[in-house]
């Protein structure tokens, strides 16, 4: 049976090639939309996980800026009074807090564009410390910095910010988010840098004492994170809490347009190709009346004929589906950074489990479309009487 189907497919290379392309297009549109969505949300989740925090508390009037820093690495400088830190620590359910200061650099020798400097307090830090331990590095020393993966500077390189010289002590792994273009330094060094900038920098850095830009919070019970975030907003006025799920929602909303277009094009392609494929299958079945008649005369059952016609369409759809999924997979991985920069959305390669489920879902839908289109021609061919079929096929 399979041999018969294979020969029949090879026998009509141009028509079947076109059908395979149509199915490949449907599969590629479906796969791409869901790949982008999964890649973006995985990327955001990995960012929060990399920061080691459950919640990030930011000044209420700088929510958009903080999202831009975290998601896209768009440098920004903003503060609130760090008197909020002990108040956040006192909120029930909070286990650990870490204040960070965000400073946008001036154009530096390492980088063509300003980068985000993030000042951390090594005594309270839980963001960089675990990473340093994992890499068996010493704690961050005076004037030492840790750079994101996209900063072109190796270990031991000197980098100058606001007229203050730093030594690169290590490089973070890529995350596909704003962390990749960030530089971590000690809060003490940030204040020294601000002092030096009065003399050495083109534009001095004004860094008031007792400020923080964001407070990273670890909660006792991760399941309680949302309730803790409500309590923080309630008890510490002027703050806004960013959670992993809220950031994922922000990114999903940004991506909604693109995924909708891709899903819509898959739907349009399906709606257009469904009757077209049905028509082509019907034409083929009509052309093959004689062949079907002979097969029936030789003892082929109605169900065999039905499976023959249906099988051909399903196999063509399956080949198209595999080509579509494979091609879009290769293109999306190769152009990942390009898509990320163009759409200004953090993107990483989705987890294997989500990739497999997206691929299977796309494949099943594509094959189902193929099967659906061939259903009527298959039934019609199966119901044909052998004598009638041979006779009408001769005409």
């Amino acid at each position, binding site marked *: 049976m399979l041999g018969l189907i294979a020969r029949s497919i090879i026998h009509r290379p*141009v028509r079947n090639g076109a059908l395979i392309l149509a199915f490949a297009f449907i599969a590629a549109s479906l796969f791409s939309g869901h790949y982008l969505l999964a890649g973006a949300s995985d990327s955001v989740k990995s960012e929060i996980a990399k920061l080691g925090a459950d919640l990030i508390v930011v000044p209420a009037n700088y929510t958009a800026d903080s999202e831009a820093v975290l998601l896209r690495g768009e440098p920004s400088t903003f503060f609130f009074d760090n008197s909020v830190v002990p108040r956040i620590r006192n909120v029930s359910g909070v286990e650990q807090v870490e204040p960070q200061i965000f400073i946008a650099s001036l154009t530096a*020798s390492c*980088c063509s564009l300003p980068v985000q400097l993030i000042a951390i307090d090594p005594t309270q830090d839980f963001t960089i410390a675990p990473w340093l331990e994992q890499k068996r590095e010493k704690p961050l020393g005076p004037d030492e910095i840790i750079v994101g993966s996209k900063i072109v500077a190796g270990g031991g390189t000197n980098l100058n910010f606001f007229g203050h010289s730093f030594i690169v002590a290590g490089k973070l792994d890529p995350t596909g988010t704003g962390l990749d273009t960030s530089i971590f330094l000690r809060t003490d060094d940030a204040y020294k840098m601000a002092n030096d900038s009065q003399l050495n920098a083109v534009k001095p850095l004004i860094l008031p004492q007792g400020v923080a830009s964001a407070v990273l919070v670890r909660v006792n019970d991760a399941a309680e994170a949302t309730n803790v975030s409500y309590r923080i907003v309630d008890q510490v006025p002027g703050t806004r809490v960013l959670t992993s799920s809220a950031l994922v929602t922000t990114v999903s909303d940004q991506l909604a347009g693109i995924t909708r277009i891709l899903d819509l094009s898959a739907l349009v392609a399906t709606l257009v190709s469904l009757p077209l494929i049905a028509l082509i299958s019907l034409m083929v079945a009509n*052309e093959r009346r004689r062949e079907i008649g002979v097969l029936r005369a030789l003892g082929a059952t109605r169900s065999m004929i039905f499976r023959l016609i249906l099988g051909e369409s399903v196999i063509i759809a399956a080949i198209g589906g595999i080509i579509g999924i494979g091609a879009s997979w290769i293109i999306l991985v190769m152009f990942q950074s390009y898509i990320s920069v163009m759409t200004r959305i953090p993107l990483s390669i989705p987890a294997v489990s989500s990739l497999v489920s997206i691929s299977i879902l796309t494949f099943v839908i594509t094959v189902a479309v193929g099967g659906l289109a061939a259903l009527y021609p298959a039934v019609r061919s199966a119901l044909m009487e052998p004598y009638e079929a041979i006779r009408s096929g001769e005409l």
Partner: protein
Amino acid sequence: MVLDKKKQSHIPAGILILLGVLVVLTPWFIFPVCEIKGTSDTGMTDMNMNPGTHMKCWYTAEAETGVGALIILTGVALLALPGRVSRKTAGIIGGILGLIVILVPTVLVGVCSTPDAPCRIGTLPALLLLGAVIVITGIYLALSKETVAAGPN
């Protein structure tokens, strides 16, 4: 329907010409390389560059224009002289040129090292993809038999 000798060469020749045109257009128009005000190989801005010099990716773009032109020429030659020997020769030459399309931005010349540079995130993957398709087309041409019977369409 059996495709005659001429028609058998028409399709791959057309594909070669199209791919050659894409190789020429990609680094300038489709996925343009870094502009002079962009980031250079060292990540420095062009302030530090001598006037008249270009970044690495610029030379890649120039080299790819030449290679693309040769691929177009191979396609045109195959179109003008269809036949078994021509197909094989065009296949081998096309395959080698496809490899060069891949090697220019990766080994022979390279692109800027800044991770987010336009030439690295756009031009490089596009050229790799085009190069791979050209190599596959070349292999197909070099190995395919002359008379493949095609059924009714």
